[in-house]
């Protein structure tokens, strides 16, 4: 493997972690939005807040990690994507600000009207942000972001069928992951009625996301035939199959109330989709621009990857300690 390929794998691992962890945090916001009135939805909102409170900042760092690796490792791709997709990314950035700040503010305010205001901001931006992130992914996947600075269509690059399908899929996936994770969290907290509520939502949401994925494939067939061919008959096919199988298995497991196992299969279903896209598109990053052409110099790649490896040595024990601390607390109390 060349250094550039290693970097791309690390980048995709970061993206996967972001989708799985922060994606679920966004989904928590979606369920917050749908939880109903202030009184009726209070317990659900507390559960959501409790689940994402200590972790969302760490989960959020994955996005920064992905952005920074992009400009470090494949700078022309970063420049092309950010300049052509100026509009959706500006909205994403604002969504992230509104969401994170409102979440922190709601936690420390005490009056109902304040909690309502911040809560609504949090919930609304939790829906909007993944949607625009999804449209951007669709723009890249359907080859609408040409290399060069702002060479693509400012509007149609992310308002095309593939982008809209990807945006909807992103919101659906976030909501689905969150429902799956929250079911287990509610179970651990011993709140049986919430377990049932989130199980029902996860089931419905799983069916919807499955349907959205099928529609997405149809859209790809019409709109981005090259990627469609790779996904359905090329190297990416096994990953697509993995995703479908894991998705179906998740529905069965949910039905049978295996809430821990379904966390794994739900994550696998999403991972399969992401890596299928990545493998299907490789080695072309943007139309006419391959990884070899876009990659930074080897000196930079080696220095950055080396630093990340050293960083991992620091990070893994720290993370272990974080979880150990809270685990010990659980057993003690």
């Amino acid at each position: 493997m060349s250094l550039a390929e290693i970097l791309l794998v690390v980048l995709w691992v970061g993206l996967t972690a972001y989708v799985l962890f922060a994606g679920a945090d966004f989904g928590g916001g979606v369920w917050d939005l749908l939880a109903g009135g202030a009184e009726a939805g209070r317990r659900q909102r507390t559960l959501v807040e409790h689940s994402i409170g200590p972790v969302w900042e760490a989960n959020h760092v994955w996005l920064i990690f992905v952005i920074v690796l992009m400009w470090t490792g494949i700078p022309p791709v970063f420049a092309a994507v950010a300049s052509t997709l100026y509009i959706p990314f500006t909205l994403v950035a604002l969504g992230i600000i509104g969401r994170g700040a409102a979440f922190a503010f709601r936690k420390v305010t005490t009056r109902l009207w304040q909690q309502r205001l911040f809560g609504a901001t949090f919930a609304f931006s939790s829906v909007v942000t993944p949607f625009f992130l999804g449209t951007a992914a669709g723009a890249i996947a359907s080859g609408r972001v040409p290399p060069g600075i702002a060479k693509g269509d400012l509007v149609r690059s992310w308002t095309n069928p593939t982008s809209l399908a990807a945006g909807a899929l992103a919101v659906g996936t976030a909501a689905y992951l969150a429902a799956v994770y929250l079911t287990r969290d509610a179970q651990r907290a011993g709140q049986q009625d919430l377990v049932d509520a989130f199980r029902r939502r996860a089931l419905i949401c799983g069916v919807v996301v499955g349907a959205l994925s099928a529609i997405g494939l149809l859209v790809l067939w019409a709109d981005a035939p090259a990627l469609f061919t790779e996904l359905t008959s090329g190297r990416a096919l096994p990953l697509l199959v993995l995703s479908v199988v894991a998705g179906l298995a998740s529905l069965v497991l949910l039905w049978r109330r295996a809430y821990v196992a379904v966390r794994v299969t739900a994550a696998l279903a999403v991972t399969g989709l992401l890596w299928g896209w990545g493998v299907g598109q490789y080695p072309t990053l943007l139309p006419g621009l391959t990884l070899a052409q876009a990659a930074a110099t080897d000196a930079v790649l080696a220095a950055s990857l080396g630093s990340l490896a050293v960083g991992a040595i620091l990070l893994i024990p720290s993370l272990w300690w974080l979880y150990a601390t809270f685990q010990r607390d659980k057993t003690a109390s």
Partner: protein
Amino acid sequence: MILQLAASPADLMAARMQMALSLGWHIVVACLGVGMPAVTLLAEWRGHRTGDVHYRLLARRWARALGVLFAVGAVSGTILSFEMGLLWPGLMGVYGELIGLPFSLEGIAFFIEAIFLGVYLYAWDRLPPRAHLLSGLPIVLAGVASAFFVVSANAWMQRPSGFAVEGGRVVDARPWEAMFNPATPALTVHMILAAFMVSGFLMAGVYAVAMLRGRRDRYHRLGLLLPLTVAAIVTPVQIGVGDWAAHRVADNQPVKLAAMEGVFTTARAVPLHLGGIAVDGELRYALEIPYGLSLLAHWNPNAKIIGLDATPPADWPPVNIVHWAFQIMVGLGLALLLLSIWLALAWRRRRDLPRSRWFLRGTAASGVAAVAALEAGWVVTEVGRQPWIAFGVLRTAQAVNPVPGLVYGFALVTAVYVVLTVATVYVLRRLARDVPVPVAPQEPDVTGFKVV
């Protein structure tokens, strides 16, 4: 199809203002993110050493505010990493890899910060005191490290090093040399010290206001004294480091130094200019201190100072903005030094705060003054680099995103920041008021105060 346009002057201006607004906002919160954990740990440590409940309550209250500030710092920082590409693709597409290493390292530092912050805040009452105290140390170290990394990236923009370019692509990159470029040492040290000054003076200022309103109990006095002591120790060092930074500017970017000092013609024995306005190629109405600049910049009254005339006018930064920003920073720095000396003298004489109400008024204003010095310093650095985005290598106008409509983006971002500012200030004030400080804290008052 969109035609390939160059950005209009209005769009370029909007992009620069947007960058300045979001960085200028983030930097204040980031400074608190670097300095406040250190002061909080200090209070917690004193609390354990002396058993004084006042210190322990202070530590808890500061930690709770930190939780909010960190969240706001994280999201306002994320916007910045987007904006590097949204606004300046011409810079990032070619040179992104050269500032990639420090930002990758910064990513690691952020992870460490976020992990240990989770432990420090959420496990306050679950860890033994010593372990809890230790869990705070990585937050401080990672905060200082991230300030170092991000400013070394900025230093590269002042003094691009460690690469060669061929056909629009970087070849022969030497990332470590780019990170440790000649502008890095002074700039990073100056920034890190500024973070401690900003935090110390701002925190002390809060308690000075309360004391002016008549709350003079031990809790408020300690809340003023501890952060103010930290800031007062840092201030004289900071002024020395500022002088070092100025020497580096003289070496690396003589045109910036000329703008800072309003020197139009290259000469020897150049006086120091205080105040004044640049009009038609000369500095008018300034107070001159003979030989001052030659002495300060080169330790020699007859040293030659390179003036703006050595550079074509098209490559000058806006002289008045840079000159005045520099004067404001230095003036505020000296004023803060006076306040620090006042505290030190009173402490040596009576082991107590100065009695004068003017001291409290000064302390109340010191936080704002430190923030103003911080912003002024960044205006010197960044506006003084114009019209280059990477000094001598790439012009700002060539780096900007050529899409139309950046002006609307700027308007939208500004509106969001106005709301964010109002909400942050409001929430922090509520946080202080909703749970009033007990007049004489007892042990249960302290342990009953939940951090998260």
